[in-house]
């Protein structure tokens, strides 16, 4: 019950932060280097034992809401659904034999800094790259695109870390 409540809170919070704050920040002609996508955190942070059905449902709801607000029906939904399917592949990289206890949410404090950067970094980088590629729908300027996704991933990781320090209570 508590978990469901937390999910709703994170869903709305991340949505507002993404749509009304990050999308509105203007840093002049370099604005394309500051378009971090942080709403994938909602999918990535779900517990280890969350079923794939639930993940896909969350991803669809999240992607659809973002799409309605940004007027790009289907773009964010498709990329986020793919990320939800591939989440377990990214998890394999960090969880070798010494797994964590089940029932823990994945975040900066439960994973530790190294694993946070590897798991969230890789998956968010993948999300950015795929999103920019589908948005542009061609391979023109592929190097700029890669650089853009790298820079934006760094910003997204920093923002998410900040977000987590501010919100998640430490024990």
């Amino acid at each position, binding site marked *: 019950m508590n978990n469901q409540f937390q999910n709703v809170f994170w869903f709305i919070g991340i949505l507002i932060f993404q749509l009304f704050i990050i999308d*509105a920040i*203007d840093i002049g*002609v370099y604005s394309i280097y500051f378009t971090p996508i942080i709403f994938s955190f909602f999918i990535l942070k779900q517990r280890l034992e969350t079923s794939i059905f639930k993940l896909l449902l969350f991803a669809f709801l999240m992607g659809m809401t973002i799409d*309605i607000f*940004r007027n*790009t029906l289907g773009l964010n939904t498709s990329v986020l659904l793919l990320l939800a399917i591939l989440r377990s592949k990214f998890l394999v990289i960090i969880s070798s034999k010494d797994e964590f206890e089940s029932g823990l949410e994945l975040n900066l404090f439960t994973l530790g800094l190294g694993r946070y950067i590897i798991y969230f970094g890789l998956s968010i980088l993948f999300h950015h790259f795929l999103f920019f590629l589908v*948005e542009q729908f061609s391979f*023109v300027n592929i190097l700029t*695109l890669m650089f853009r996704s790298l820079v934006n991933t760094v910003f997204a990781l920093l923002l998410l870390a900040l977000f987590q320090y501010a919100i998640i209570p430490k024990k």
Partner: protein
Amino acid sequence: MNSSNAVSASLFNLKYGVISYFKLREVNQDLLEENALLKDQLLNQELKVGKRYVKLKDSLYYKNYKFIEAKIINSQFKFVENNLLINKGKLNGVSSKMGLIGTKGVYGIIDNVSDHYASVRPLIHEKFGLTVVHQKTNTWGDFKWIPGKNNFRTAYVENVPIYTEINLMDIFSTTGSDGIFPENIKVGRAIKIKENKEQQTLKITIELEEDFSSARVGFVVKNFMSEEINEHYRK
């Protein structure tokens, strides 16, 4: 299911209510400047029709355009398919394929309309097309915004013949032929000119007049003759 629906548009409206205060000074300044310009035009009219002359059915004196003032409550400028949202809709007489201009230049064309809101396809959209004219020589060219190569302040004008004399900072404006925008609304200024020897054309980089990152107020252009113009294009 687009961003001009009631829920998302009213949320963006709320956001506009909060952040519009930060830009009040600049908006005020822009409006003042435009006011001054309009007054200037009004008082310095070259053509005056006195009482002795009777206006017959001359299309020069038809009231062609009506301007509906609108607030731009959300403006995207970071994406490939950007989108603006304004707070005037069907009930205010706005319908799709009308133009939206700002105090300095062109913003875009209305796309989707709901009861109280409308979404606009701006100049900085991958699939935006417009014919523009070079004011000094009256040469036409095609406006094009390419996402990877242009940022939200610049765009290209293509297919201008190579013999056209174009200097830096020359103004490109609307033609008025499409029935969407009136004549002589500024689009941008030339900041870079490149020759294409094979096709014998010029490719001109222009700086857009309007800054989409701080778009706040605009005017929807309603053309009373657009149906008549479109009849000619259909044939």
